[in-house]
């Protein structure tokens, strides 16, 4: 055998210190990665259609199936339901981040990124940016479609922006939950499956699609703390007029609470895995 008894490597045989990526380089990396995520969406039209048409499908079905029964006529129902849909889009944006993250881990693409001299946060930020673009498109499509159906904005465009802001804040809070899920589950299908288990009760156990007063007491107890109820109530008030403060504060409290609890957990887990 030709190897000698190997001496221990002399203590740092290398200059001390590491060289992190500069901010400027990181911005370029984020740009390149965002482009990648957007191209992935383009290459996977089903997921894009999902994002665009699910809200529209929901709208049409609910407006014309339940609208009359819930609100007397479909026009009233449009004013009632559409503002709440903004929060729903924020929620699906958040859940898509976890699925995307899981896909990158399970396909080994994340391993390739991790052997490259880029900040690991750029991968996450790019994912967020791309999903935000997708949500923005589906929001615009939803609003335009609802206006065709007869949605009227009774207040100012600033209020509409405030509505979007609330939805975005809530989406940001849920992103951390989704990230955790994305890293805990073995594959993208599992992320989606468990994600649905979280989303569906939140969606329907809320004041988004129907007023809560006809629901049984135990359900009202749930809906009254459900962040999507708060979001829907606040958005309705912002678009149709009415008391905004209480539901808006509740929705914001949820966003902050989710972020405070889940962001450190998600980031810690991400750092551990990368």
């Amino acid at each position, binding site marked *: 055998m030709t190897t000698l008894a190997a001496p221990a490597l002399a203590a740092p045989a290398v200059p001390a210190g590491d060289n992190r990526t500069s901010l400027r380089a990181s911005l370029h990396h984020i740009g390149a990665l965002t482009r*990648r995520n957007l191209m992935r969406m383009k290459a996977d039209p089903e997921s894009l259609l999902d994002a665009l048409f699910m809200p529209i499908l929901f709208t049409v079905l609910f407006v014309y199936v339940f609208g009359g029964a819930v609100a007397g006529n479909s026009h009233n129902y449009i004013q009632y339901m559409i503002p709440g849909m903004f929060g729903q889009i924020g929620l699906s944006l958040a859940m898509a981040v976890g699925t995307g993250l899981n896909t990158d881990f399970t396909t080994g693409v994340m391993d390739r990124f991790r052997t490259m001299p880029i900040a690991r946060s750029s991968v996450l930020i790019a994912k967020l940016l791309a999903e935000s673009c997708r949500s923005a498109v589906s929001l615009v499509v939803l609003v335009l479609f609802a206006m065709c159906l007869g949605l009227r904005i009774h207040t100012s465009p600033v209020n509409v922006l405030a509505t979007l802001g609330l939805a975005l804040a809530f989406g940001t809070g849920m992103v951390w939950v989704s990230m955790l899920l994305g890293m805990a589950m073995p594959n993208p299908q599992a992320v989606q499956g468990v994600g649905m288990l979280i989303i569906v009760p939140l969606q329907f156990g809320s004041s988004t699609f129907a007023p809560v007063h006809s629901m049984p007491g135990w359900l009202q107890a749930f809906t009254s703390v459900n962040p999507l109820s708060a979001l829907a109530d606040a958005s309705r008030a912002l678009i149709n007029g009415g008391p905004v403060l209480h539901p808006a504060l509740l929705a914001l409290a949820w966003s902050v609470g989710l972020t405070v609890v889940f962001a450190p957990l998600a980031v810690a887990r991400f750092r551990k895995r990368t």
Partner: protein
Amino acid sequence: MTAGFGIVPRMEPTTDSNNAAAVQVRGLAKYYGETRALDGVDLDVAEGTVMGVLGPNGAGKTTLVRILSTLVRPDAGRAVVAGWDVERQPYRLRHEIGLTGQYASVDELLSGYENLYLIGRLLDLNARGARRRAEELLERFSLTDAAGRPTRTYSGGMRRRLDLAASMIGRPRVLFLDEPTTGLDPRTRNEVWAEVRAMVDEGSTVLLTTQYMEEAEQLASDLTVFDHGKVIAAGGVETLKRQVGGQSLTIRPAQGAQLDAMIRCLAERGLAAVPDGAGGLTVPAVDEAQLTAVVAALGTSGLGIAALETRLPSLDEVFLAITGEQSTVPAAVPAPTSLESVA
């Protein structure tokens, strides 16, 4: 150090006595519960050479490669790659390495071109530079025709080639290849080998893991044989082979009918010869004195020799001799299993 946009100026690492080593590993260990994936490994790879890391499934090859490419942290020991410490200076280190993992890590939804372009951009090439490099590598790996197609439509071999191209974009100083040709057909395998050689000619150092003796013989100048997380043998390819002792001898009789007579003649002198299935006979492990004796014996018995060949034992035989047990290693790269051959 302010690193502007572009290639980060590299601080020349100060080198110690092993200044010719591109990879230095000392006492490296990684445990997964009871499993000792790596159990105190020492290894050096000289700059500009190809180190073959050979071992059966579960020997710890992938774990070694993942630690050296900063994907996994070791539990004990130290590793320095291109002058940078894997644990303390991963960012600096990542500027110097390329990795092709055991399983292709390409983005299935993007085209081959876009996969390579993205990596170029992440390595701080400008848009034009990234485009050029991507096109150049697609050409080199015969992927130009498929460049625009999503990689999920690629065959296994095409994916592997793309993955390899991806790891070469940054012209890495040290390239890690984890079983680069496992599952490839012979033609693609030869292409991959040629590219690895080309990388070495361009100055890269390569650490390559393989289960195939033939691959190690083809590419590597030095070998480290792993088993159960430990180095069980190390050295130059020729040295290792010679260590096992002897050469194997193949003789083809001048007259085919004399094959049996030859085998009997050698058996009388205590040499176990077996037919090699191609009209000749093989005597495993003969030393020089025996070689002379064989030729003399056949000559005096009037058995004519048409051809005589000696060769060093295959690495399979080396592995067998070292471990003393049947390795789980396939003897050679298996024949391609293409759809045609199945149908």
